[in-house]
């Protein structure tokens, strides 16, 4: 890394998350982008199309006829040896489901910017995490953005994570639709050359366009090899537990903004902890501060990297707490709790911890999640500790009875 160690400060600017990601894409200048418009991601493809039209990027943009075709074209383009990105939301991500698995199984480092949206039915264009949580087993690395700055920063880091020789897996980062996607915030953009130097150049080991060394991609793979290939893929995903913080640290040395797998906020000495991902982390930070002012030992564990899930770090961050609430912005119908809760409980149990843990589903379909609701969660945790009784382990937050 030839860039100077220290803080490369960009000019402060006000942008919404979609535009911030479009700016990052312009700076990264991918070889191919294939994407289809869907609310609330549309602004990304619109803005990026402007960059293509004005010649500000070298990217060949494929304005596909569906999200399934977007991911399919990304697969072909990535196997052809260049950098490939796309963006989608909600139903678009669901429509890609089959090919998400092909992208990861073929070990193609495609980058996807997800702007979270609920899944139909009933139809709803607003934020929850049903889309990306629904794709949690598809073999993609998943990061979640807390704010617009992080959406921008993650958009850049995911390229390095995906293309890391130990990983070679498609990677997505997800920002809350409308809340971040259309929410204007202050952020700092890096200079173009700093972004380009940070992501460097991409030279894959194999390429379809290397016609002198023909390679077969996507063969039929049956009982005798398929299982080993899937194990290799699973182990590559776990290696991202080392690579995600490594890249986050390099990015931190460049920008002063350091990133790891998790971020504990006033957590070390906390007695009552919440586990949160996405934009609600910001809301919860404020509530933690207010509670601390009142003398309540409240803390927060933000999960930035959900896939792979940093189970050991989560368990040790939470194992000594009196009571823990895990907040989920999606439902896993019929399961014993929702996606993040199940991960956290498994992590605690498999590491020998058994604190009291409850799960709250919140904010479905873009329902506002306000500080008063988070206060209620912490009050519930205090009550659980005092009464020594958990009650229903899976609950709803901010909902009419």
């Amino acid at each position, binding site marked *: 890394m030839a860039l100077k160690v220290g803080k490369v400060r960009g000019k402060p600017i006000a942008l919404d998350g979609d535009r911030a990601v479009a700016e990052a894409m312009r700076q990264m200048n991918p070889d191919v982008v294939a994407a289809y418009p869907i609310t609330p991601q549309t602004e990304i493809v619109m803005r990026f199309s402007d960059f293509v039209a004005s010649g500000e990027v070298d990217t060949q943009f494929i304005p596909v006829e569906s999200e399934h075709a977007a991911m*399919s074209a990304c697969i*072909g383009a990535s196997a052809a040896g260049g950098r490939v990105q796309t963006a989608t939301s909600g139903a678009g991500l669901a429509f890609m489901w*089959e090919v998400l698995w092909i992208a990861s199984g073929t070990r193609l480092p495609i980058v996807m910017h997800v702007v979270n949206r609920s899944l139909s039915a009933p139809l709803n264009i607003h934020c929850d995490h049903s889309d990306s949580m629904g794709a949690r087993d598809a073999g993609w690395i998943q990061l979640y953005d807390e704010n617009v700055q992080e959406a921008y920063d993650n958009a850049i880091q995911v390229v390095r994570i995906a293309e890391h020789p130990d990983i070679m897996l498609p990677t997505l980062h997800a920002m809350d639709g409308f809340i971040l996607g259309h929410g204007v915030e202050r952020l700092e953009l890096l200079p173009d050359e700093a972004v380009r130097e940070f992501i460097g150049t991409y030279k894959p080991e194999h390429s*379809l366009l290397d016609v002198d060394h023909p390679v077969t991609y996507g*063969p039929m793979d049956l009982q005798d090899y398929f299982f080993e290939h899937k194990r290799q893929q699973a182990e590559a995903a776990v290696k991202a537990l080392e690579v995600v913080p490594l890249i986050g640290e390099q990015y931190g040395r460049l920008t002063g903004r350091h990133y790891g797998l998790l971020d504990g906020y006033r957590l070390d000495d906390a007695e009552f902890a919440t586990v949160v991902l996405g934009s609600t982390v910001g809301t919860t930070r404020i509530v933690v501060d207010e509670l601390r002012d009142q003398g309540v030992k409240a803390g927060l564990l933000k999960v930035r990297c959900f896939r792979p899930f940093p189970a050991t770090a989560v368990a040790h961050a939470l194992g000594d707490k009196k009571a823990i609430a895990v907040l989920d912005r999606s439902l896993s119908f019929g399961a014993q709790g929702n996606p993040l809760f199940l991960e956290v409980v498994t992590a605690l149990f498999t590491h020998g911890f058994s604190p009291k843990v409850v799960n709250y589903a919140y904010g479905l379909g873009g329902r506002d999640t306000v500080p008063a609701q988070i206060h209620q969660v912490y009050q519930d945790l205090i009550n659980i500790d005092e009464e020594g009784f958990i009650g229903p382990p899976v609950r709803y937050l901010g909902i009419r009875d």
Partner: protein
Amino acid sequence: MAINLKEMSAQRELLAPGHRLCAGCAETIVVRQVLRAVGQPVVVASSTGCLEVATTPYPYTSWRVPWIHSAFENVASTIAGVETMYRSLVKQGKMEDRGIKFVAFAGDGATYDIGLQFLSGALERGHKFLYVCLNNEAYMNTGIQRSSATPMGAWTTTSPVGSAVPGKRENRKDITAIIAAHDIPYVAQAAPHAWRDLMTKAQKAIAADGPSFINVLVPCQRGWRFQPEETISISRLAVETCIWPLYEVVDGEWRLNYRPATKKPITDWLQSQGRFQHLLTPQNKHIVDALQHEVDRQWERLLERCKLPS
């Protein structure tokens, strides 16, 4: 562009022998003819189907050229992605322009049915690639299920012959005309017995300035129920009965490539294959008549499009 058989026979086969397709399968005949005509450098994509599973049982591959398979429905989007990356890298000076050609092979299920949207989108966007439909008129890889390419009356395992239903009830879709309606530079129908015609078409298609499409009939001895050694004669019979005319649409102009001296009756076609045997009974004569009527109607419409007398 001429077919020089002597030169071509000296070329290395781009699809290696030892693959696992059935004896008498027309697919490899067509793939080898097309790849010979197209030449190297070439990148090939296949949809899920007989060709894909039989040529790439890991750790083996029959492909001596770069090859990719992604899914059943999306071969057009996949090859579009490959072709776009090539244009991008060449334009940016990241690789030299070696005149790489792009070919997709897909079955009729992948083309007429599940992949039609993907194909239509890729054609509309003008990606420069040749799409070859290996049309055996049913889902053969999964065991002979009806597709929208299956002719009326045919037995398949999802249009079985029973006392209430005499095989497939519906006429097939005219996908070649649907593709021609996209106004792409080159569209054709071909069959493996007419090898010179097919190879000439592949050469014209790959030289076209934009997307091109060839719908090739690939007789399937397992699904159509005939002897493996009859593949080529069955292919010829399809053309002689006019159920599979050979034609091309060049920049919107329709041209008939072969006109039988006398159009053979559809019963010759039906008698040649087990999938139609139930039609050759007196109570199903109305289906045979309807099929003949449909063949005649389509043939007349084709002659009209080609500005030829009936």
